[in-house]
């Protein structure tokens, strides 16, 4: 005697599957709706145009923002981190004596003067002698 392992529930489940397939076949296709197609495509076109406009108008603020950022960065880099205050400037003025700086004698200066002639060379020597050894200065001892 053979024992049947057949489950009646399996049959019912298969029956449900078959009924679903039958129903799907019954649904089939609806007649093509031209008005629906036209309305849908109008919405799609509007969406596309809106997207394009958003891109166009969205680009200008982005450019402006980028420009502002560049200018701000340039200012930040060039700006002194610790600006000199008026008080600090005054202190510097007190400490550092301001005096007239005489033109410095240089080889180039003497060569130029020599090229101009003896008179110019003597004038150059005199000018430096006046700065280095003014008439009011004491002569160093033991020099004479």
């Amino acid at each position, binding site marked *: 005697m053979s024992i049947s392992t057949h489950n009646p529930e399996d049959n019912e*489940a298969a*029956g449900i599957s078959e*009924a679903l397939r039958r129903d799907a076949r019954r*649904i089939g296709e609806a007649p093509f709706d031209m008005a629906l197609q036209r309305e849908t*495509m109008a*919405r799609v076109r509007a969406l596309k145009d809106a997207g394009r406009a958003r891109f166009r108008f969205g680009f200008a603020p982005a450019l402006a923002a980028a420009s502002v950022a560049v200018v701000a960065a340039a200012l930040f880099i060039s700006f002194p981190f610790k600006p000199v205050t008026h008080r600090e400037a005054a202190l510097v003025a007190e400490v550092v004596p301001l005096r007239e700086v005489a033109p410095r004698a240089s080889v180039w200066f003497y060569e130029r003067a020599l090229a101009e002639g003896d008179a110019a060379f003597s004038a150059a020597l005199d000018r430096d002698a006046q700065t280095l050894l003014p008439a009011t200065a004491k002569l160093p001892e033991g020099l004479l």
Partner: protein
Amino acid sequence: MSAPQTEEESQLIALSREGDVAAFSRLMQEHQSRLLAQALAFCGDPHQARDLTQETMVAAWKGLSRFDGSCRFFTWLYAILLRQHRKTLGWFSRRLPLATLEQQAAAQRHESAAAHEPAMGEEEEAALLRAMVTALPAKHREVVRLRFYAEAGEAEIASALGISAGTVKSRLHHALEKLRQMKEKVNRLRDSRH
């Protein structure tokens, strides 16, 4: 099972992705009739079905970049249709009250008794079956519709819904089991009539 993606369809999809509205329109022309018929089967109301189909096509345009070709284009569209339908149902999308099914059965019992017909007609059986599918929890309803009404394979359903093939198999099994139990209940109600 409906035909696999053709070369022409692949080209239309590629063009649509690049923003070609004419190509998208052509693509939708191919699927509109079937989508509309399915939407009508879901809601029963032609106006609602039309709105649902339109929302599906617009959502498809918006999300076209997400279509990766791992399932047929119609399966992907169908999954969008299901989501849109769920959105329309709102709170009821999770599960329609089982009372709906019982009311349906009671109404049919009454009609049958009035007409003195011993058995239900094919149309009535179909209406009852759809009511049973509608009474399923949303996650079960989706796999049943994709499997039997969109004729999608398990792997395709998994791809369209973003779940694993194992989950599809399990949901399908539970859904069919629930449908079987509902059918049993309806049969008991019918028997009690006699």
